[in-house]
C-alpha cells in the first residue's frame, strides 16, 4: 500500500468538514443540522490531531490533543444547548423544519 501521511488526514478532515457544511446547508431538519455541526467539529478535531502528529517533529507535545479535547467538550456543551434550542423551536412552531423559523427575515 502506500504510506499514510498528513495529506491523507487532511483530505479526510476536509471531506468531513465539507460534508458537515453541506449537511448544514441542505438539511431542513434541525437535528440534521446538528449532525452536520458535529461532522464539521470532528473534521476540525481531526486536523488538530493530524497537525500535532506530523508537524512537531517527534517532540512529545500534546497541543493538538488538548485542542481536540476542548472541541469535544465544547461539542458536548453545544449539543446540549442545540438540542434545547430544538426543543424550544419545536414548542414554538410545532416543527423542527428550520425553514419555517424565518421570523427574523428582513
Amino acid at each position, binding site marked *: 500500500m502506500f504510506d499514510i501521511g498528513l495529506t491523507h488526514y487532511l483530505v479526510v478532515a476536509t471531506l468531513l468538514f465539507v460534508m458537515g*457544511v453541506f449537511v*448544514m*446547508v*441542505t*438539511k*431542513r431538519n434541525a437535528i440534521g*443540522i446538528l449532525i452536520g455541526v458535529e461532522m464539521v467539529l470532528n473534521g476540525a478535531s481531526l486536523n488538530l490531531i493530524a497537525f500535532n502528529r506530523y508537524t512537531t517533529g517527534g517532540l512529545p507535545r500534546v497541543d493538538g490533543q488538548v485542542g481536540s479535547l476542548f472541541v469535544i467538550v465544547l461539542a458536548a456543551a453545544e449539543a446540549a444547548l442545540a438540542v434545547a434550542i430544538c426543543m424550544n423551536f419545536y414548542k414554538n412552531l410545532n416543527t423542527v423544519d*428550520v*425553514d419555517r*423559523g*424565518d*421570523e*427574523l*427575515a*428582513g
Partner: protein
Amino acid sequence: MSGYETALCLGVALPLAMFGVLAFFGARIGKPAAGWCAVAAVVGSLLLSTYVTLGWLGMSAEQKSAATSGAHAWEWVALSVHGVDVPILFKVKLDALTVMMYFMVTLVSTCIFVFSVGYMSGHSDEVDGQSKYHRFFAYLCLFEFSMLGLVISSSLFFLFVFWELVGLCSYLLIGFYFDKKYASNAAMKAFITNRVGDFGFLAGLMLVMFFLHTFDLDQAAETFKFQAIGGTGIFAASVNIFGWQVSGMTLATLMGVGLFCGAMGKSAQFPLQVWLPDAMAGPTPVSALIHAATMVAAGVYLVARIFRLLTPDAQFFIAVIGLITLTITALIAIVQTDIKKVLAYSTLSQLGYMIFGLGVGAWIGALFHLITHAFFKAMLFLGSGQVIEGCHHEQDIRKMGGLSKKMPVTCWTFFIGVLAIAGFGIPLAHVGIGGYFSKDEILAVAYERTYNWEARGFGDQVGQPAGEHALPAHAGMLGATVRLASDNPTGAEERETAIARHVPVLPKFMFWIPIIIAYITPFYMMRCWWLTFMGKPRDHHVYDHAHESPLMYGPLVVLAIGTVVFSYVMFRDNIAGAGVAATDASLVVAIDGGKKTADNMLGITHHTGHGLVDPHAALAGIVGFAWLVGMGIAVLIYRNGLAIAERIRRIWPLSWIYVALEQKLFFDHIYDTVLVGGTKWVLAQLSRAFDTYIVDGVPNLLAKVTVGLANFSGRIVDAGGVDGLIDGFADTAQAAGAVVRQPQTGRIRNYILFGTAGASLVVIAIVLVTYAGAR
C-alpha cells in the same frame, strides 16, 4: 406822495382796519353798534374820497397830469424775466377814472352800509345760537377795502390781488347763510365760476409779464404799442396750441382775450353768467353791493383799464360776448317772478351793454353807464330789500301788488330806478335820467361803427392800396403805423386814425340787437315794478304786513337823488377827461364825443357832415321812445294782474319759449350735465382706474407676489429642499435597507451558506495574496 394819494390810500385802509376791529372784537361790540362802526369806516372813506374828488374837480388840466405822473412807488418784490427786471410796484393810479370810480364806490357803499344796519335788524343773524351780525359787517368792510384797493392799483398785479380779494368776499357774503344749502351752493358756484375766468386772467397776466416785462398799466401799454409798431415781442410770437399753428391770430390778441376772461367771470358775461342770479342767496344788501358798486363793476373797470392792451380782434371778441350776454339775459328777465332775480338778470343785461360798449369802442359811454347803473341798480336792489323785508321775506312778485300805499317812498324811488334803467328821457332835448344818456352813447358808437364807418373811410381795407392810409393786412396795418410814426413822431392822432381805419365795420345785427333789447329792458322792469307796487293786492297776508322803515328808505332817497343828479354833472365829463390818457396809444378804436379833446379820441365827430347821419339823431328816431313803448306794453299786459300774461304765455310758440326762458335757456342744466357731470364722470373713471389699478392693484400685486413667494418657498424650498433632504435620507436608507435585506432570508441554511462561502472566499483571498506575495 401827494396829499391826494395819501387820502386815497387812507380811504382804502380805513375799511381794512375796521375789518380787523370787527373780526376780533365784533362780538363784544354788539349788535347795532358793530354795524354803525362799519358805517363809520365807510363814511370816513367817503369823506376822504369827497375831499379828493372836490380837489380833482378844482384842478386844471396841467395840475391833473402832474398829479397823475407824480406817483410814488413802493416796491414789493423784484422779479426777473429773461434777464429783464420786472419789479412789482404798488403805485396809486391817480386819474379821473380812479377818482370817479372811487367816489362812486364809496358813495353807493355808504348807502348800502346804512341800509344794511336797518336790514339786518330785522333778519336772523344766528347760526347755532351764535350771532354772525358783526361778521356780516366785517365782510362788508373787507369787500369795501378790496374794491377800493382794486380801483387805486396802477399795477395789473395788485389789481389781480384785489380782484381775488373781491372774489373771496363775494364768496363769504353770498354764503353768509351758510347753514342753508342753497346759499353755500350759490357761494361755491360764484367762486368756482370766477375761478374759470381768473384762469384766463392769470394766463393773460403771465403773457404781460413775459412779453411786456412790466405790470404797470401805463408802461405795459407803452411797450405794447412799441412792439406793435415794430412787430416784435408779443406780436412776433405765433400762437401754437399743441403743435397746431393758429393762423390769423397773434399772441397779442390772445393776451387781450385772456385778460378779458377775468372780466367775463367777475362781470358775469356769457358763458360765465350763471353764478350771478344764484348769488341772490346772499342778504339783499350784499346783492346790491355785488351788483352795483363792487364786484360786477370790477370786470368792466378791468376791461377799461386794459383797453390799451387789446388788439382789434380782441376788441371784437369782447363786443360779441357783450352782445350775447345782453341779449339772452334780457330775454330771461322777462319771465322771472322773483323780484331779486328780475333785478339780477337786468344787471346782467346792463353789464352786457357795458362790455359791448367797450368792445365797440364806446369807452366813455360804457364807463358812464357803469356809474349811472351803479346808482340806480343799488337803489333798485335796496328797494327790493325793503320790499322783501317789509313783506316778511316774500320775494315772489306774483304775491305782491298794491304795495305803493304801504311803502310809498320805496315805490317811487324804485320807479325812478325803473325809469333810469329804461332810459327815460326826451330825445334831442337833453332831458332824461340814467341810462338815457349812457346807453345812448354806447348805441351811438355802435351806430357810428355800423353805418358811418365806411363812409368815413374807415374799416377793413384789405388789399386796397388807397393812398397813405392804405392798410393792406394786419401786418400791413402795423407797417402803416410805423411809417406814420416815423414820418411824424408826434402824430399820435394820425397814427390812431390810421389804426382806426383798420378797425372793421360792425355787422348790422350788432347794432340792431342791442336796439331791440333796449325795447325789452323797459318792459321787464315795468312789469316788475307794476306787479310789485301797482294793481290790487294779490296776497292779503303779505299786503297786511307790508311796512317800511326810515333807516332803509333813507339811503334809497339819497341814491335816487344821486341817480338824477349824476346823470348830468361830474361823472360824464370827468370820465371823458380820463379817456384821453386811458385809451391813448391803443391799437383799438375808442370813439366818443366830439373833437380830439377830452371828448374825442380820434377826432371823429358825431356831426352830420359828409352826408352822414348824426347817430344821436338817428337813435332818437329808432329808440328815443323805447322806454315809453316798453313800459306801455308792460302796463297794458299787467294792468289787471297776471290774467292777460297767463293767456299770452299759453299761445303755442310762446309757451315753448316761456319754458326755455324760465329754465334760464338751460345753461344751468347744460353746465350741470356737461361740466359737472363730465367732471364727475372723468373723476369717476380716474377714481375707478386709481381704485382698480393702484389701491386694489397694489394689494393684489402684493398678494400675487406673496403667493408666488409662498409657492416658491413651499414647492421648491420646502418640498424640494427641506422635505427632499429628509425624504432623501429616508429613501436612501430605505433603498439601502432593501438591498441589505435581500440576503436576510431568515433561513439558517442560507446563513450558513453565506458564512462558509464568505469564509472560503477569505481563505482563497489569503492564499492568493500569500502566493502572489511569495512570487
